[in-house]
Each structure stands twice: as structure tokens, then as C-alpha cells.
């Protein structure tokens, strides 16, 4: 049997659905980063947060490094830096822990998210 992808191991789309609310509540409640989300349209957040988590879980998505770069460029002009990226990583880990995802899978998801750092921060 071929090895399951990280996305499937974590629980696929159902896991993403469960994680969306938990993760985004943490982000909005965090004064270090909430300012970046102030004018983001809430109506479209569910879809956006799902995209974020799908990328982090290594799930099916069409985002390229260039997309990540372009998608966050307006935030970089507003001062987005490593400390903000670290805060998002923290919430990602805490969310998965809350959902009882095993530590080794959390580490894998964190590594995928970490791999986007330079693109997100426009370097």
C-alpha cells in the first residue's frame, strides 16, 4: 500500500473544516497580527482560511510560490515580518493540537507552512 499523504493522514477536508473556525478565532484574537485582518471581508474568510489550511496540510491546491508572494505583497508593505509569520505558525500548531492531531503530523504540517516563509514575506 502506498503511503497516505499528510493531508489524508490529518483527516482531509473534514479536518480542514474543523480547523477553520478554531484557527481563525485564534488569529483574530491575537493583537500581534489581528491588524492585518481588519479590513478582510468576513464573508469570504471561510474559503480563504480553508485555502490556507489546505496548503499547510499539503492538500490539493493550485497555489504557486508566486501566488503566495502576490497574495501577501500588500501586507508586506504594511510591515508583515518574521514575528507575524511566527505568530501564525504558533496558532497553526495550537489548532492542530486542539484537534488531537499527533505531534509528528503537526511537525510535518509546520514544515510545509514554514517552506512558504520567504514567499509570504516577499524575499
Amino acid at each position: 500500500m502506498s503511503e497516505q499523504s499528510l493531508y489524508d493522514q490529518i483527516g482531509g477536508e473534514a479536518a480542514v473544516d474543523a480547523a477553520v473556525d478554531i484557527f481563525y478565532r485564534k488569529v483574530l484574537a491575537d493583537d500581534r497580527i489581528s491588524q492585518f485582518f481588519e479590513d478582510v471581508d468576513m464573508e469570504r474568510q471561510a474559503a480563504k482560511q480553508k485555502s490556507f489550511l489546505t496548503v499547510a496540510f499539503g492538500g490539493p491546491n493550485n497555489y504557486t510560490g508566486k501566488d503566495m508572494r502576490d497574495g501577501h505583497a500588500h501586507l508586506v508593505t504594511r510591515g508583515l515580518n518574521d514575528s507575524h509569520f511566527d505568530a501564525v505558525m504558533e496558532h497553526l500548531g495550537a489548532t492542530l493540537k486542539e484537534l488531537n492531531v499527533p505531534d509528528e503530523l503537526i511537525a510535518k504540517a509546520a514544515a510545509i507552512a514554514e517552506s512558504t516563509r520567504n514567499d509570504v514575506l516577499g524575499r
Partner: protein
Amino acid sequence: MRMVKGTPASESQKGLKSSLVSQNYFLPCSCSADRDMEVILPDAANFRFSTSVVSVDLLTSEIVRLRLARPSGFQYHPGQYITLYNAEGTGRTYSLASTPVLDPFLELHIRLVPNGIVSSWVHKQLTVGDTVSISEAIGNCFYMADNPDQSLLLVGTGSGLAPLYGIVRDALHHAHQGIIKLYHGSGTMAGIYLQQELNQLAKNHNNVEYTACVSRISQATELDAGVVHGRATAIALQHNPRMSGWRAYICGEPKMVNDTSRALFLAGVSLKDVYSDPFIHSKP
């Protein structure tokens, strides 16, 4: 995409809001065609209907109630919206406050915007018997009978009451069992309308609660009995600090809608349970 003939495979509707699923929206990327289907793109809702004005009357000094004959074949969910066109073909969107099973007409609540092209035309020129043209109804902000015990919170400001009035009556028509709390906000008493009807609904249904909220008052302001001083969102949160498991409908001024969506989300409402229509208007 939305299927207008046939039913999409459930696989292609995964992750969509219930209101989209019930209108046969689907994700083309995960839909395989094993039978014939006819599809349209979202917002390609461009059928026009010609109809006539049944009544126009003032609900408050700034809001008119416009009733139009319901054209045959016109389908809608209360809370969805239509585009209303003036004689020059300039169109603006307005939400449906009527319900198809209870009302023979389509009802809109239109606030007069100073120098507004379409709202001024409605307020100052339209009279009973005039012919007007409208689009078909679109939008996802409407009642769904998928969870009759769920608690519902409805928050609207100004003419944002229009869709909510449709939604609350639709929910009751579907014998919704969970509590339904409606908060209607306005800057001044002049923006509060349909009080009698809503108080009556609350009296007749013990799961319905209605609160009118007025944010700007002076010493001379006389608040009617049952009207509360404050902003609708703040009062709603004060009454209901924890709302996990609730579904929320939020309509009216765009900034209010976004701020309220965020506040309700932080108070426990799931993102997928937030339904809203910001009344976006043209830039000055």
C-alpha cells in the same frame, strides 16, 4: 456554477454553504457529467421581468415600502435580492421582504439616499400602476429549513430590516423551533419601522424576540416602549454573549455587516453559519 436543469452530484457540492447547495450551485472542478445538465454562471441572473407597482407608501420619513405584482414564474427565497431598473435602465439591488407563500406581491423597503438616482425615483416618481422592470432573485442570505432547532440571530440596520423581515416570516412559516432573535438598529427613531408587525410576531410566537435599537438620542428623544438605546450589534452581544451553534443573518451598511460578522464569529458563531448582505452602494 449553478445547475438550472438537473441536480448536481453531492460530491460537487462539498464545502458549499447550505444556501448555495439548495440552489443547485456546485463546483465544476469536482463534478463529472454522467447525465445532461444545463448550467449558468453565478450572477448571470439576467432574466428581466416586467411588472407593475401595487402600492408605494412611507414606512418612515426616509423609507418607502414598494409592492410590485409578482410576475408569473418568478421564484425567490425571502431575503434574496432583485435589481430594480428605472426608465433609463439604471438598476439597483433591493432585498425581498415578502414571502412567496404568504404574499401575492413582492415587497421592497427602499431608503431615500440624498441625490440617489434610483431611490429618489422610487420615492418621488413611482405611483400605483406604473410598469417597472426587475431581474430574477439571487443571493444566499435566506432561511434554510435544514436545522429547525438552531438558534437564529438576525441583525440589521436601516432598510437592512427588509431581508430579515422576509427571513423571520419564512422561518416561522417553516415552523422553525429554535429561538429567533431580531435586532433592528437605526441612528434615530425615524429609522425604526414595522414595530407593530414585529411586536405582534413576537407575541404570537414564543420563540421570537424583537428588539429595536436606537443609537443617537438626545434628551428630547422619546423612545417608544420596548426600544433600547444603543447599537444593534452591541445590544445583541450584550443579550447573547456566547453564540456557539447559532446561525446569523446580518444585513445593511457594509461596515456594520463586516464588523458584526467578526464580532459574532468571535462570540462563537461558525464562519459557515454567518449569512450576510452588505448593502454596497456606488462610490461618490
